[in-house]
């Protein structure tokens, strides 16, 4: 199997949940819908306190092109329009809180939840439906999908890559989606292909998920445009750059180069599923698949949950153990540690990890072993970036291409001195940004 340079092989710890089917989580009594669940401008709330809302109703209008709408994920009453802690930034962002009305049956807003024959849709119509449904990249980056579906005219797309690698340890929700919703994902992928006027798609699945490979291959059927490919199980195989390199041999250029520059658009399998729901069912993005796992929960599992559901409730129903020490939204390598469970599920929350291990802040000086250099899948020299940031030498950090780092964490994973290299990179980038803002 072809591969990319670098990467690491962490213990994947997926076995606890890989065999557990996706379960529809009970509807939450209250949802907290953040207006900023995507990259780009936060949405603006368009409902007021006390207003009755239906499932799928628009409650947050996008502000600008690189932004996404937010829809109510339950039928109920707006309890408050205020602020709530975001699991991404840890700071308070505007949010709409909706109390579900348990006395009535769930009702979808007008124009939503209408299964449609889809053959007649033009590329622009597909793009508009996806944009209106608030679909964003569901692998965690949450970049608005409609922007990726409208490449500039001078950068034609010849390949769509569907990311089914799920290379982060612990997470299995994409795996389950591929097993249980393979036909829907394929339908979503065909919509993406039509929106991009593209005739080739590659579905990349890590070799540790042979059942998903089988299921997806079966679902493809006789469609010659789409090929399912086995990928080596190596972190970060699901990174855009690594997927493109492994599947096409192309390299995304440095200095802010995007996959579009090499004729590729990468979408997560969960995004393709959301695109299917948006286009074929006319359902806005109001739920997602999510894995609740880690040694800190008694009953791990894969769930289909409503966006905005309180994370504390999900953890409680999974049996949060008293010895759980750390809560992470996302995977253990790129996920974000949370200071409190009083946060909602967002469009980008693919996993909830409750970990019980002790973490130490102790780290030593760089011993110049070079393991991080071998591990870095972007060809950087993390040791030098780390040392430059340590002495707050922004020019040196910049010379070592700190901006090319995607913070995948391979370097910190292999570092025998336990240096917090990713934190140093984030710190260095923030310092550079504030220095740039002052200058």
């Amino acid at each position, binding site marked *: 199997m072809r591969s990319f340079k670098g990467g690491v092989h962490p213990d994947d710890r997926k076995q606890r949940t890989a065999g557990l089917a996706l379960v529809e989580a009970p509807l939450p009594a209250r949802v907290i819908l953040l207006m900023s669940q995507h990259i780009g401008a936060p949405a603006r709330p368009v409902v007021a306190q006390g207003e009755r809302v239906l499932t799928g109703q628009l409650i947050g209008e996008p502000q600008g092109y690189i932004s996404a709408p937010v829809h109510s994920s339950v039928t109920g009453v707006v309890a408050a329009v205020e602020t709530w802690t975001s699991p991404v*930034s840890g700071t308070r962002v505007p949010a709409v809180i909706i109390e579900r009305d348990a006395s009535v049956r769930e009702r979808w807003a007008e124009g939503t939840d209408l299964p449609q024959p889809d053959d007649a849709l033009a590329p622009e119509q597909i793009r508009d439906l996806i944009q209106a449904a608030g679909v964003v990249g569901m692998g965690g980056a949450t970049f608005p999908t409609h922007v990726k579906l409208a490449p500039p005219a001078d950068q034609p797309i010849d390949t769509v890559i569907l990311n089914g690698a799920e290379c982060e340890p612990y997470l299995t929700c994409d795996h389950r989606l591929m097993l249980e919703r393979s036909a829907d994902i394929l339908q979503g992928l065909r919509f993406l292909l039509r929106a991009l006027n593209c005739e080739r798609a590659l579905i990349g699945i890590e070799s540790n998920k042979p059942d998903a490979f089988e299921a997806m291959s079966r679902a493809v059927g006789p469609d010659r445009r789409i090929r399912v490919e086995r990928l080596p199980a190596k972190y970060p195989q699901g990174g855009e750059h690594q997927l493109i390199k492994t599947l096409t041999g192309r390299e995304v250029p440095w200095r802010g180069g995007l996959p579009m520059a090499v004729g590729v658009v990468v979408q997560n399998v969960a995004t393709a599923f959301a695109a299917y729901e948006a286009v074929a069912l006319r359902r806005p993005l109001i739920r997602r698949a999510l894995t609740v796992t880690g040694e800190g929960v008694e009953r791990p599992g894969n769930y289909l949950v409503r966006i905005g559901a309180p994370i504390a409730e999900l953890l409680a129903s999974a049996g949060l153990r008293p010895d759980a020490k750390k809560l992470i939204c996302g995977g253990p390598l790129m996920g974000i*540690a*949370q200071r409190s469970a009083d946060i909602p599920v967002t469009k980008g929350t693919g996993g909830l990890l409750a970990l019980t291990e002790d973490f*130490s*802040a102790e780290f030593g000086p760089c011993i110049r072993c070079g393991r991080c250099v071998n591990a870095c899948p972007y060809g950087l020299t993390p040791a030098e970036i780390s040392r430059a940031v340590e002495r707050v030498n922004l020019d040196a950090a910049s010379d070592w291409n700190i901006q090319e780092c995607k913070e995948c964490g391979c370097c910190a994973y292999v570092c025998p001195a336990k240096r*917090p290299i990713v*934190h*140093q990179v984030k*710190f260095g980038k923030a*310092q550079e940004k504030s220095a740039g803002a002052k200058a």
Partner: protein
Amino acid sequence: MGLIPSALLIMGVMGILFGIGLAIASRYFHIESDSRVEQLIACLPGANCGACGHAGCEGYAQAVAAGSAAPDLCIPGGPKAALGLGRIMGIEVDVNKQPVRAVVHCQGGTGRCGQRFAYHGLADCRAANLVQGGPKRCEYGCLGLGTCAAACPFDAIVMGADLIPVIDWDKCTACGACVRACPRALIDLLPANVSHLLACSSQDKASVVRESCSVGCIACWICIKNAPEGAIVKKGNLAQLTYPQGCDYSRAAEKCPMHCFVKVEAAGIALMHSPQALSQ
């Protein structure tokens, strides 16, 4: 000729040749430099703190020599440096400006303002501030990791036992390095003759402040009622002292239910209330 005399001769001749070469080069490649720059640098303290807004003392001296900077911008050098620079440049300098010094607008140290999570990252306030909005319970309060102390070129800042910086005003030159280093903008330069300062920067609502800190401003505005008109103004959810000439803040300070005011004394900041009293 013996080995040693011949070596000496060769080295000597080479030395003379190189010397002549250098003498010629220094003539030919001579660059006209302002002789005053050297004199100006000699008058400056050499801390390269950047308080004047230039790249170090030499940069400032060049700017003064070029006439693009005033001679009284060196804060660490004080009146002495200003007079020296003025004399060299032949400019009259007013040295009766009120000196300023750095003060910290937070007293929510350990025991008064807790942590909301165990922080295991880099020991730098700016890095800690990036993680989930900072480990401190108060989103405006001092993070206590000593980035200001590390930034001070004059060793005027030490971290107190409660992890709030303590500024030694004998050493502080008001260069402002700490002001720039603090990610939460808690340090400010105040005239040395003020009697009180408000040691809180929280813009949170009273309910949030009460939950997070025992010495935070709750915007009750009792201080405004106990101070001369206009001496304290509302800045969002925080009281701000405007320091009009000869204003007495002692009554307002006494009435503050959250003990946010601290009294400024010649030696430094004296806490209005002992830490024991506050914890009760």
